[in-house]
């Protein structure tokens, strides 16, 4: 049996030996975790860098292809500009409704009724008709009142002269 000549004060305590063993294991684990972290971080960085470079390269390629279609792009810009402004013009009062009113009223006029004057303005149509007798006047006014789609009809003039007959002036708003 060997003789331990090491003095007792140089020998580590039992619990310290156990602690050292546990710390050694922890140290190995921590080194492994550190290495894994380095690999993951480096790998991610390289991966993302490569993908970014690839995307930038694709962008240059796409820019080149778009340059080739520059004429088409110019036409598209021109077209959108024109259409935006045409829409603005088409939204302005065009007189279309007033012409439609005029046309409808002409179709309503019975025999013995003649157009005397018509004024088509921005928001209304003023029509003056000459009627030979009261019956036709009533018939005409009744037809006008029965017409659908008119917002307002205003009687602006009603005159009788023996030589001319009846003159009826109406203002129409659609």
């Amino acid at each position, binding site marked *: 049996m060997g003789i331990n000549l090491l003095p007792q004060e140089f020998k580590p305590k039992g619990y310290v030996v156990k602690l050292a063993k546990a710390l050694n294991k922890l140290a190995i684990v921590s080194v492994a975790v550190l290495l894994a972290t380095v690999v993951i971080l480096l790998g991610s960085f390289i991966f993302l860098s490569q993908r970014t470079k690839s995307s930038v390269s694709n962008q240059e390629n796409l820019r080149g292809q778009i340059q080739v279609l520059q004429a088409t792009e110019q036409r598209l810009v021109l077209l959108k500009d024109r259409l935006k402004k045409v*829409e603005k013009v088409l939204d302005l009062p065009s007189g279309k409704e007033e012409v439609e009113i005029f046309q409808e009223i002409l179709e309503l006029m019975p025999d013995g009724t003649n157009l005397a004057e018509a004024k088509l303005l921005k928001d209304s149509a003023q029509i003056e008709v000459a009627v030979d007798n009261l019956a036709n006047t009533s018939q005409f006014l009744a037809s006008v009142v029965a017409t659908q789609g008119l917002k307002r009809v205003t009687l602006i003039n009603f005159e009788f002269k023996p030589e001319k007959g009846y003159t009826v002036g109406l203002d129409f708003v659609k």
Partner: protein
Amino acid sequence: MKHFKNPFVRLLGPNVRLLLVPIAIIGIDVTLFAYLASTGYSRITKQLSEYRSAQGSEKVLSDKLEILRQVEAEISTGAESTVIALPNKNPGIFSISQLRLLSSENGFVIENLELANELRDQDVDKMDLKMDLVGQDLPSVVNFLTNIQALAPIMTISEVNIEVEKEGGWLTKMQVSIYWSSLPTTLPKIDERTQGLTQQEVQILTKVSNLKPPLFSVLEPSLPRSRSQPFN
């Protein structure tokens, strides 16, 4: 025994000596890990942001290219008809030509033609065209007024006054407005998002394409021909 020879080691107790190496390794690892975590995370985040930005730009360019390819065939004639409908310069001559043509088709004579009241706006400029129409037939007047809406360049009716002519027939005094607008001078940047034609724009384009354009004639240069009498 070598640990007795190193004075520093001799100063440390046996317990400390046993724990020193693993504690040092763990300490270094934790420090490196903390440094890597903070620095690495910020770099990865920055790189990820750059990647996402590049992806976004690539998508914008890709969509733009796709749209340009789709519309290439559609807009080849559309752009021309819109410029005819709303020219970049005062279309007085074209509008007068259209009105004269329309009036002759309806049996009218145009008199006292006058261009007046030019109005400049930010988007669309405007001018008034006044004229007198002399004709015999009232339905033709209505036909004329209705068909003005179907002509290009676009005209809108401002005022119409129809009265009986003394010699018989109808005198129509009318005022129409004509429009024009300058062309765009800049293209958007190549990286800017592009939209194709919206539903509303397609409807307006269809409407504009159906307008009757002015008649343009192209004068071809005449070819040289032989002269039977060169000195005449």
